[in-house]
């Protein structure tokens, strides 16, 4: 039984041959669209970071103002 299992498993190795068989998003890389993906995500992330910086600055201003009153 163990021999049959071993041979069966070794046969599956034939279908998982080489790295070239595994399809990655090479089309996206070839036609440069991957940079669109990166661009979109960068826009989102930089937008969120700008928002964070804005409220951080607003807070600092309020804190300073508050400290002056006291």
């Amino acid at each position, binding site marked *: 039984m163990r021999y049959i299992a071993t041979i069966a498993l070794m046969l599956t190795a034939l279908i998982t041959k080489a790295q070239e068989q595994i399809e990655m998003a090479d089309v996206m890389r070839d036609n440069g669209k991957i940079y669109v993906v990166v661009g979109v995500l960068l826009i989102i992330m930089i937008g969120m970071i700008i928002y*964070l910086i804005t409220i*951080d600055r607003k807070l600092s201003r*309020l804190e300073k103002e508050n400290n002056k009153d006291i």
Partner: protein
Amino acid sequence: MRNWWKIAAIILLTYSLIAGFLIEVPKQVILYESIRNLYFHVPMWFSMTLLFLVSVIYSIRGLGSGNLEYDRKAEELVNTGIVFGILGLATGSLWAKYTWGTWWTNDVKLNGSAISMLIYLAYVVLRGSLTDEQKRARISAVYNVFAFVLLIVFIGILPRMTDSLHPGNGGNPGFGNYDLDDKMKLVFYPAVLGWILFGLWITNIRVRMANLKDKIEI
């Protein structure tokens, strides 16, 4: 330069985003390009765990000193950590749908992380139910300790002891096994650090907002 660490967060996150999509990754069946989710899904959980760890440390120090500053920090660290945990669950669920074929499964790690999130949500509810500041600080600090211990048990210990579908648990290889030329680590470690700093930044803002609110209302 007081805010150097905020700038570091921005640089690390921007780098991990760009490199995360452009740098070569190991080719694996089933995963294909989604292996890049490693740079986002895992940092969510690492950041959450670190935020919760710092929180429980502040809770313990608060228990010793009675200083409400510590209690405030512990609270906001949990609040931010919960956001990261929810994002971790959501990103993991989407990833699971396209790799395991299901949004959710009865897996030790998944159930454990969901339960841990509920435990921390209960921390928020507990705080909301107590009005006296000192009492609230003490009781929620004790609860925080138990919550963190349970977190470690549910997501760190139990999944490694039984069968699990999740990478890194139950006999499955972690992604380190695929990353033979360490190219993924080149993006992964900066990403983890970036998201941790980002979480601390959000917490910092929350704490300052809460402190300012207190001052204005008095």
